[in-house]
């Protein structure tokens, strides 16, 4: 790669050809504000449309200002990033953006985490010099997961890049033109009427309050205050390695015990672990997988833990709706077990049990509301809150999680294995399933439980696993764009596998749409991932079928994986949804 030399604010620097002015300035620790720009390095996705113009700089010999995020460095370039002209332009751009932005920061859901608000503060925009007509679009909250307020859209197009380039779902796009231009769905449909998967990656990258989650915190607060209800919490694997970030902990901090303590402080009657249900999922899914392999069933078997991925399949791969495992996701299994096994044991009417999930995900909200996600007429899960929303609720309740003494999950639904916790990282479900499938298939003990080949946040991974002479081909895709690529190959018959794990969010649930914002720093995802594998490697029991509480559950209630009772409560079906 050839190099180019330039000066930025009088400092000489040599960079590789193709480096942008923004990147070069960053390496010199020169700050340039950005809004539309985002670089999700680990996922090879960049939004560098150069639309907001906040990052403009002065380049000698150029008539107008250059957008530093998409202007490559050139030999001999002389760049000034903070001249009066530049600062004036940036302030004007900010004033323009604010002139067409609702002035409701105090009540905005994104307040405190809004990049536009931060910049307005940084640039001390005290007045909006150019006032005038403001855009007025209807908001969309006609779904369970994502709240869209186009009035707060600044046309940065990050969501569009996440939805189209990364997830390749293609719901959001620039529409209309001129002052009326806004990111919207085709024909201005509500998200619920599109094939949006509610993966929430658009929410993750939105710099303002245009895309936020639909929250049920108030309902949870009311349930907690209702003496007639037994309110229980379940926490997904990926939450424990991310929620610390909301309390200024280092990324990758494991906050399991403190999170449990915090939930107890919120007066949850019982704090359980979705990991328990993850182990249960493995029991059902591994059983189904081996059954299909041995008895010539439909292959590949696809994992079904991720509701966004399931929805994509239902819309866009209708001929494949019968191949995912019929096992419900751990969230839903947990609810079914809590309400129909645990409640009975405790002598509580399932109607009085309120199951609150804490999930890294926004699609889980949608999933819990799916018509078929109930047993005996009782919904498995009542409310789903995201990791971010739990943090909000804790702060609102005056609970500083960081200062709490660690506590243990309640039992029996708090008991889990290392296999369960890695569900939160891409490849984890597959690895957990393999640990169990191996032992069941071969009847031998699995010595090396780490299946490194399916780990990591690469988009598509595949491996051949030797089950004592029988080779099982497995693959893993994370990110719906990668999932589509993999499925298309299978559809065309170019590749064949026995089992495939798919996660809608790149890197898996650790990067879910409900996790604390990473503001483009994808190294955080890697740290969360490492933390999950650390928890796993420190667990004594690392295979789901060895979870003593799971064994007890089958003994007392379900009999065996795939039993009639298991099918009634723990399995589901999928539907062709059209587009």
């Amino acid at each position, binding site marked *: 790669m050839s190099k180019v030399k330039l000066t930025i604010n009088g400092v000489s620097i040599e960079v590789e050809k193709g480096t942008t002015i923004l990147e070069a300035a960053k390496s010199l620790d020169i700050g340039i504000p950005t809004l539309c720009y985002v670089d999700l390095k680990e996922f090879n996705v960049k939004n560098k449309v150069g639309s907001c113009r906040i990052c403009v700089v002065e380049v000698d010999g150029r008539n107008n200002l250059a957008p530093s995020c998409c202007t490559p460095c050139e030999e001999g370039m002389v760049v000034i990033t903070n001249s009066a002209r530049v600062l004036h332009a940036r302030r004007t751009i900010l004033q*323009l953006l604010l002139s067409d932005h609702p002035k409701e920061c105090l009540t905005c859901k994104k307040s405190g985490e809004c990049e536009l608000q931060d910049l307005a503060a940084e640039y001390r925009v005290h007045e909006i010099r150019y006032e005038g007509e403001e855009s007025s679009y209807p908001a969309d909250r006609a779904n369970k997961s994502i709240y869209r307020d186009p009035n707060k859209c600044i046309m940065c197009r990050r969501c569009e890049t996440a939805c189209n380039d990364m997830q390749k779902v293609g719901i959001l796009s620039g529409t209309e033109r*001129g002052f009326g*231009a806004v990111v919207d769905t085709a024909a201005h449909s509500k998200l619920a009427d599109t094939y949006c998967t509610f993966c929430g990656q658009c929410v993750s990258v939105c710099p303002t309050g245009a895309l936020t989650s639909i929250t049920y915190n108030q309902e949870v607060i009311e349930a907690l205050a209702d003496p007639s209800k037994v309110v229980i919490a379940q926490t997904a694997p990926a939450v424990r390695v991310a929620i610390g970030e909301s309390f200024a902990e280092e990324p990758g901090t494991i906050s399991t015990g403190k999170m449990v303590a915090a939930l107890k402080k919120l007066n949850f009657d019982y704090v359980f672990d979705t990991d328990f249900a993850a182990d249960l999922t493995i029991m059902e899914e591994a059983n189904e997988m081996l059954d299909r392999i041995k008895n010539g069933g439909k292959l590949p078997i696809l994992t079904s833990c991720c509701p966004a991925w399931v929805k994509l399949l239902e819309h866009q791969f209708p001929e494949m709706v019968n191949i995912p495992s019929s096992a419900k996701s751990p969230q839903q299994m947990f609810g079914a077990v809590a309400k129909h096994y645990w409640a009975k044991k405790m002598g509580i009417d399932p109607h009085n049990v309120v199951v609150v999930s804490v999930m890294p995900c926004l699609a889980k909200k949608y999933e819990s509301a799916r018509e078929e996600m109930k047993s005996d007429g009782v919904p498995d899960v009542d409310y789903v809150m995201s990791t971010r929303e739990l943090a909000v609720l804790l702060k609102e309740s005056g609970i500083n999680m960081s200062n709490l003494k660690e506590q243990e999950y309640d039992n029996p639904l708090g008991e889990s294995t290392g296999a369960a916790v890695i569900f939160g990282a891409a490849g984890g479900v597959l690895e957990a399933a393999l640990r169990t499938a191996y032992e069941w298939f071969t009847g031998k003990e699995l010595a090396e439980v780490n299946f490194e080949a399916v780990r990591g946040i690469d988009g598509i991974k595949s491996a051949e696993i030797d089950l004592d002479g029988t080779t099982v081909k497995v693959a893993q895709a994370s990110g719906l764009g990668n999932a589509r690529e993999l499925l298309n190959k299978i559809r065309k018959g170019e590749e064949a596998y026995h089992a495939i794990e798919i996660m809608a969010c790149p890197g898996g649930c650790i990067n879910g749409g409900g996790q604390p914002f990473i503001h483009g720093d994808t190294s955080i995802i890697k740290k969360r991932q490492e933390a999950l594998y650390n928890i796993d490697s420190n667990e004594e029991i690392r295979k789901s079928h060895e979870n003593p509480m799971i064994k007890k559950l089958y003994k007392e209630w379900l009999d065996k994986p795939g039993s009639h009772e298991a099918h009634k409560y723990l399995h589901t079906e999928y539907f062709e949804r059209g587009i």
Partner: protein
Amino acid sequence: MIEQYRIVLRNCGVIDPDSLDDYIKQYGYQALGKTLAEMTPADVVAEIEGAGLRGRGGGGFPTGFKWKIAAQQKSDTKFVVCNADEGDPGAFMDRSVIEGDPHSIIEAMAIAGYAIGASMGYVYVRAEYPLAIERLNRAIDKAKEKGLLGDNILGSDFSFDLEIKFGAGAFVCGEETSLIHSIEGYRGEPTTKPPFPAVEGLFGKPTIVNNVETFANVPAIILKGKDWFRSIGTESSPGTKVFALAGKINNTGLIEVPMGTTINQIIFEIGGGIPNGKKAKAIQTGGPSGGCIPVKYFDTAIDYESLKALESMMGSGGMIVLDEDTCIVDTAKFYLDFTVDESCGKCTPCRIGNKRLLELLEKVTNGTADENTLNDIQSLSQVIKDTSLCGLGQTSPNPVLSTLKFFPEEYKEHIVDKKCSAFVCKELYQYVINDSCVGCTLCSKKCPVSCIEGEVKGVHIIVQDDCIKCGKCYEVCKFNSVDLVPGGLSNV
């Protein structure tokens, strides 16, 4: 007396556009034949570069240089694109060329394809030009039949094919990167340059995008040579330019004159002067990206540089003559209104900035501007120029800045005196009936909103609060009893 000089329009109205034979009789396809038989691709590029041909679509970028860059790129696929997305209000030279001489574009694009190493071309035409599309389609078919397009053109190794793509009428698609995205099937929006299309254009391949008028010059340059072309026009801007003459001028329509012709020559010698004995006030050139040049500069010899020096630009050649009855602020507002409407909305300064600029101008014309307004207009215009993503936004404040520079007193009159001398800005004038009214009641009968009161044979009164300033009373009064007077802000 200046005469028109036709290179671009050489065949328009002379030949039957549907007749390939007619075109061939006018030396048609001889340039392509010469290119394939006698010239290397580098020769062609050198000839165009040497001729000093510059982009006729607006920017005036050296065409030969663009071709050279594209020719230098190593790529198995390259494209030639003809920009026929003519969008400037009042301009129709591209349409005339395609409608009147479609083969000249086909021939030029094939020559360009040979020069840069492309075997595929697209003509991006507005769907609002059905006749142009129809004739171009027929011309393409005929050229293919005769082996002038397709594989092994004229028995050579060179193959070139053409396809027509329709534009849906978005002005911004005249901007080359937007045009490219539109052809690719994406939303018509610009992207930042670099990469320039000549390096990375249509479908990521080296692409030259040239305007219709630019292409129409090419066969003539190849046949007659660069020196001939340079002998016409000025040093920096050789050749001719087609202008669409419109507005307050006796002879409207397309004209083609050598570069260097003065505005006076165009308006008074070719255009026949201003109608109704009125005086000229300014000439608006360059479409929505251009500016208004006042009468005192009418002796300017027109070329790319001289127009730019006068805060205007060549643009695609729109020329709208404004007479003394024109309000200059209203004119600036008209053009800005167009840009606000046609902005793609991608970048902040163009999407919101131009809207705010328009609102500031509206304040000027409706009498609500104050002492800070001019400063705000200046400052905002500068930032829009400085920070917009594409040419549309970068030039959109030009009509405002040029009128502000040349007619500052007219802005001040609006702002300070709340007066529009041209009686164009409705909020700044009113109709009143003077004492000479004989009470014939005609005005009252004709008034569409019945806001004129009075007895028969008595002096009538216009109820200003209800008056919509349609001017009907002024028109019908036979006794000159209705006056147009400044003021009236109080009833806005």
